[in-house]
């Protein structure tokens, strides 16, 4: 009996590469977090540009994007980490810890590169400690980085009882946040350029490399990933280190912005970052999330905060509106999941 004659299914057809998704605009917007975040952003921007003359000015958009940059840059790392089913709560304290030490280093050795190198190096070290404790001791990263958050905050306070002032007076220093990479035809501030660079870099890494693919597999099903030859701990370590290094870079941009290293900087920063990453489509259960989603989420939250201040609303609304947006997004997400799961 030849093998060919046996039980060939009747309906096999050549598989296609297409995705037959919804066709109406509404369906497309609902189809992914990126879709409905874009929808939200368009609505918010239309509303704000009608209500405020200054919203759509080059200066305000520059301010808005520069502010978004700090959260987004750390958020890109956090996205990788959360795809891998881990989280880092210490990125907020990093803003204080790294900021204080980087400023002290700059005061001692007044070269811009020294400050940047110190900031990123500290990030790498903290990332290695976070990953080491999480992976070697098998404690969840939530707890490890919660402890790290307290330790770094304490270290920031211990290393200085006050803010570390800019004593080096490097002229290039303030430009890290306030300068522009180009002025014509549009002004692109440095933080925006740095954010754009990492956006492109990590979008490609996540979508187009073996690293990105392995990351999603590892987050969705660690056991299956390990049995497919993926080095789980190596990948996770890389994610921890990238997140902390980016948080360090963001801390450096923050001290350039404040012109001092504040030991009380970055309170609630980790919440803003994790909130944005979740809003962008990631999940604490891992395996989900995109760089674009994280960027759009930070942009949306940043636009709302900017708009609330521009229009002179009670600033306390910033908290409430952020919460409401996250709730709406979660709601839309569950609707979307119900729709896709039935198909």
């Amino acid at each position, binding site marked *: 009996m030849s093998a060919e004659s046996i039980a060939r299914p009747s309906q096999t057809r050549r598989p296609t590469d297409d995705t037959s998704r919804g066709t109406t605009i509404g369906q497309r917007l609902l189809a992914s977090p990126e879709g409905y975040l874009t929808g939200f952003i368009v609505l918010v921007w239309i509303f704000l540009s009608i209500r405020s003359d*200054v919203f759509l000015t080059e200066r305000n958009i520059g301010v808005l994007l520069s502010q978004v940059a700090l959260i987004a840059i750390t958020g890109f790392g956090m996205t990788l980490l959360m795809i891998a089913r881990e989280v880092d709560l210490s990125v907020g304290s990093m803003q204080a810890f790294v900021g204080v030490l980087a400023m002290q280093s700059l005061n001692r050795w007044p070269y811009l590169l020294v400050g940047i190198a110190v900031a990123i190096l500290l990030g790498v070290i903290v990332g290695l400690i976070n990953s080491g404790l999480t992976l070697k001791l098998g404690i969840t990263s939530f707890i490890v980085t919660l402890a790290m958050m307290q330790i770094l905050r304490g270290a920031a306070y211990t290393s200085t009882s006050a803010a570390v002032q800019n004593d080096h007076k490097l002229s290039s220093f303030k430009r890290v946040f*306030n300068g522009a990479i180009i002025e014509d035809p549009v002004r692109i501030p440095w933080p925006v350029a740095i954010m754009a660079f990492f956006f492109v870099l990590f979008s490609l890494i996540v979508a187009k490399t073996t690293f990105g693919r392995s990351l999603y597999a590892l987050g969705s099903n660690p056991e299956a990933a390990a049995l497919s030859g993926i080095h789980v701990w190596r990948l996770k370590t890389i994610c921890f280190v990238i997140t902390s290094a980016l948080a360090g870079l963001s801390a450096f941009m*923050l001290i350039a912005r404040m012109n001092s290293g504040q030991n009380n900087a*970055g309170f609630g920063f980790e919440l803003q970052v994790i909130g944005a990453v979740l809003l962008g489509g990631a999940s604490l259960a891992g395996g989900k999330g995109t760089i674009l989603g994280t960027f759009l989420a930070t942009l949306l939250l940043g636009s709302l905060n900017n708009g609330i201040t521009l229009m*002179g609303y009670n600033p306390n609304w910033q908290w409430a509106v952020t919460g409401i947006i996250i709730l709406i997004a979660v709601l839309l997400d569950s609707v979307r999941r119900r729709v896709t799961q039935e198909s």
Partner: protein
Amino acid sequence: MTKKSLWHGWTARLALAMVALLALGQIAVAQDATPEAGGPTEAQLAGDAVVRSLDPSAPPEGWTIPAKVGHVTNYLVHEWYQNLTKGEQARADEWGIEFTINDANLDLTKSLAAVDDFLSQGIDVLNFTPVNEEASGPKITEAAATGIPIICESSPTDGCTTLVSIDDYAAGFKVGVWAGDYVNENLDGNAVILDIGLPALSTTVARSQGFIDGITSVLGENATVAQSVDGNGLKDQAVQVSADALTAHPDVNVIFGINDDSALGGMQSYEAAGLDMDQLLVVGFGCEGNACKDALMEGGPYKVSAAMFPEYQGRLLIDAGIAALNGTELPAHTIAPSTPITADNLADFYTHDGEEYTANFDAIAALSIEGES
């Protein structure tokens, strides 16, 4: 699969809630304060005068000097408390008192437990900074029942013998008047104000209100508040909100901050926005640290701050305790001195020696405390 994701869903939510609680706990730095209504009696005024004139080298005859004084602080890592307790320690040394600090680190439970610890250690006077004034009331009332004086700092609490703190509104008003005069002389008499406040706390709201009333008392209708924003008392957040506000109001020429970080953060955003620093006046509050003093001396737009002299307040705290222990009647609010501090008078109050600034207590003590400028 379903079970798993459900479980993850719950941990996720729980985790977020925990993070949120933690963050909120750390952000809520201080607490409300409501200034006492009704003036002090003559006896209390006399007692107040006694506190201010105590001298360790010549203690009043027959007075008992306490052996042990303990201070339950709220948030020792802050520069304010660092300098305040430094002042207390120095004064305690002068009197020969054993002085101990127990910090609550913003934790109410810890704060109340620290009170019990001190009581069982047999302290003679308790200095107390509440984490939350209402929640601390019962414990302090209970502690007061043991008969020891309780000298509160920063916010009034039930059971306190007296509260030692500045009059936030009056201090704001004075610095507001100073700013009004400056605007008249240097900025064409028109003030467009960005107020970087902290609306969650009554003391900081009083500071903003005092400032606005003060500057308005000089400039009248020529003083307008372009916007009040919430900087949460933190420099990074102050920079953030003021950057937004300044794009909407580039005509701002006076920035007021409820503390030095808020004011300095606003100044940073103003500079980053590329606006003319010569046309700006920045007004801070507290001047407890070097950042403010350095900024004043730099000669930039940061011209004035409502100085709160934490070192001197520390001295008052110790002296008030000694007076109370010896039966002196004290007013509900022992008002600590505050004055607009500028590049011109900084040297009167602080001696600059390398990195350090040392407070000149005689000059501070000589400041009028009744609110007249």
